[in-house]
């Protein structure tokens, strides 16, 4: 029961830290720390949710979960289970392992879907995109709508539409391209992967959807920060505003609710002076890392 209480405490702790982070303003100023916090919380809650039923089922062994798992495996191999270990215990262990399998499976499925979508992108880009002297190293798509994106991978591609090329002055274009290169270099697709996987495993669960949207926005802010190192804040803000207000030829209105809010938040942030890392950020990071450490150490003990 002691171990179950630990796992339960980790779940509760994750919930509280996540709740605090949704309400705080500091993540906007320290997106990198906030991303780390979310990664830690994601890992912690995944392991803890597996840990609660597993540790309940392993209670008859009266040993830490890691050791008890090994003992159970040995007993199963020997065909001799302890008398106290009933069907209920085995069912609980199966539930825990089942949750683990679902989480792992949806991660693999998300990765697989992303890899396929990217391969299709690369195949099509090879046939229809063209290089342009105005943007060296970048693929240009001849389409009037404004779009700039990155196809992540080992050999990433930065793509911009002809509409975006004509929309942006040269210096703003350079800032946008720096932003995309930051996504590619820091593999932000992998940062997002656990959260897309979680929302695939638990579709329609509000706080999962919210965490994914939050991390997606933080990743954009992080890429904005990387671009700011080399370009003026105002350039990036202007490019964002220009992009967002460009008439779109391909997207029907009314489907982009979340993004509207995001872009305004990014522009506001770029126009505000930067502030030092707040102590709350450090506190949250410490909490998230401790919460991740807790279930890991239980499974290893």
């Amino acid at each position: 029961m002691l171990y179950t209480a630990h796992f339960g405490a980790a779940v509760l702790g994750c919930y509280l830290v996540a709740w605090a982070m949704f309400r705080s303003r500091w993540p906007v100023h320290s997106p990198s720390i906030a991303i780390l916090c979310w990664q830690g919380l994601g890992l912690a809650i995944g392991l803890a949710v597996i840990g609660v039923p597993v540790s309940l089922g392993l209670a008859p062994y009266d040993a830490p979960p890691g050791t008890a798992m090994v003992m159970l495996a040995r007993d199963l191999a020997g065909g001799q289970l302890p008398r106290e270990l009933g069907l209920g215990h085995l069912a609980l262990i199966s539930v825990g392992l089942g949750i683990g399998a679902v989480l792992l499976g949806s991660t693999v499925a998300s990765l697989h879907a992303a890899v396929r979508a990217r391969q299709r992108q690369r195949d099509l880009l090879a046939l229809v995109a063209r290089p342009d002297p105005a943007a060296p190293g970048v693929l240009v798509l001849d389409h009037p709508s404004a779009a700039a994106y990155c196809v992540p991978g080992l050999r990433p591609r930065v793509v911009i539409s002809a509409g975006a090329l004509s929309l942006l002055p040269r210096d703003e274009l350079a800032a946008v391209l720096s932003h995309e290169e930051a996504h590619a270099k820091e593999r932000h697709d992998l940062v997002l992967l656990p959260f897309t996987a979680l929302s695939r495993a638990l579709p329609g669960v509000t706080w999962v959807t919210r965490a994914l949207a939050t991390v997606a926005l933080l990743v954009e802010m992080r890429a904005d920060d990387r671009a700011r190192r080399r370009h003026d804040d105002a350039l990036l803000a202007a490019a964002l505003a220009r992009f967002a207000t460009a008439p779109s030829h391909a997207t029907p209105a009314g489907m982009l609710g979340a993004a509207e809010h995001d872009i305004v938040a990014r522009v506001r942030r770029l126009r505000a002076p930067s502030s030092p890392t707040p102590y709350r950020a450090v506190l949250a990071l410490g909490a998230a890392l401790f919460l991740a450490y807790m279930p890991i150490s239980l499974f290893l003990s």
Partner: protein
Amino acid sequence: MTRLGDLERAVMDVLWDRSAPATVREVVDALDGRDLAYTTVMTVLDRLAGKGMVERERVGRAWIYRPAATRDVYIAQLMLDALDQAGERDAALVRFARSVTGDEAEVLRAALERDKG
């Protein structure tokens, strides 16, 4: 770009520029400036068929090839992915920004005007 990717593109350009489906021989002839072997072009067409970019059909003893879709259709597909019409935040692509509408757009337009001034 790889040599193979380059060839695929050249072959697709030939098919897109023709109004009718083409045989391997016709593609080779259209690319005569490149001095390509018949088998090379056939391999490239096979690869493109494997990726679903071209469709082939047997006519008599020869295969004829046609593009599975126009160039504009492919560009539109890429753009729809890029603009994320479904609103899904999948991990496949990372985008710079999406279009906004209504009041938020007004806020941003105002920001843009201030930056100019």
